[in-house]
């Protein structure tokens, strides 16, 4: 059976599921870089490291129940994806609780190198392009959210709208990111 692009990880997780302890360290060495890269791509650095660690621990906790007929990499990234969503929700709640209003400009690191400046400009351009593909209502929702403002609707409704707009933005971002 075809299991995706990492047959080594597949066999390591299968051995772990069967109780073969000698597969522990090779599995750890194979998983850790994958998870760090994956979480770093979807979360800010401070949260990415924590999310990668939590995912790794969760994968090992659930390793006994790993079904060898399933793709190991898909399973691993599924657990990581769940952890990333949890980290984002946690951040959203923290922001809501503290009423933090932080524009992109205020987050700018004054000690950034010229290379990082170029990368940041590229990122902003791609973000602008992705936002351009959204519906006007979504753009308005995100604009209000970024400013820390809220229209005269219930907080839960607004949060739901923000979540939906962010999902659409992510989809547009992925499309823009894949086809520059």
């Amino acid at each position: 059976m075809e299991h995706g692009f990492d047959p080594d990880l597949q066999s390591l997780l299968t051995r772990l599921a069967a109780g073969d302890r000698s597969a522990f360290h090779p599995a750890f060495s194979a998983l850790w870089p994958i998870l760090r890269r994956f979480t770093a791509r979807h979360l800010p650095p401070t949260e990415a490291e924590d999310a990668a660690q939590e995912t790794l621990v969760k994968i090992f906790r659930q390793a006994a129940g790993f079904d060898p007929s399933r793709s190991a990499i898909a399973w691993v990234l599924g657990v990581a994806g769940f952890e990333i969503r949890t980290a984002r929700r946690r951040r959203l709640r923290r922001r809501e609780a503290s009423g933090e209003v932080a524009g992109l400009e205020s987050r700018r690191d004054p000690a950034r190198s010229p290379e990082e400046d170029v990368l940041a400009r590229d990122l902003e351009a791609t973000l602008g392009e992705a936002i351009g593909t959204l519906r006007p209502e979504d753009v308005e929702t995100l604009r209000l959210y970024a400013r820390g403002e809220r229209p005269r609707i219930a907080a839960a409704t607004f949060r739901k709208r923000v979540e939906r707009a962010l999902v659409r933005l992510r989809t547009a971002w992925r499309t823009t990111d894949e086809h520059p």
Partner: protein
Amino acid sequence: MNTLDARLVSRAHRAYELGRLTAATRRALLLALPISLALAGCGAPQEVLACGGALLAAVTLFLWRGQEYEAGVWPGVAAGLAPLLLPVLARFAGQNQMTVMDRIE
């Protein structure tokens, strides 16, 4: 390996063993059914409880350990179920036979 990695390895290792133990316990609890059956059908509950407890502990240990130990658990349990259920079935069949004999008489 730096300190963070070492700490993470030990955390992951603990999580792995704990996860295996939890899964093993959950699967071993399937034996509660035949043990309850034995308790209901046998006249010596203390012995049944002692043997059932030992069986549960052994099955949990083997499932947690994995590999050949785990592979042998369910064939072993299946083989043990026959002598466990035979007296219960014999008793049940004996009672039915007595009822039929009573009716004939």
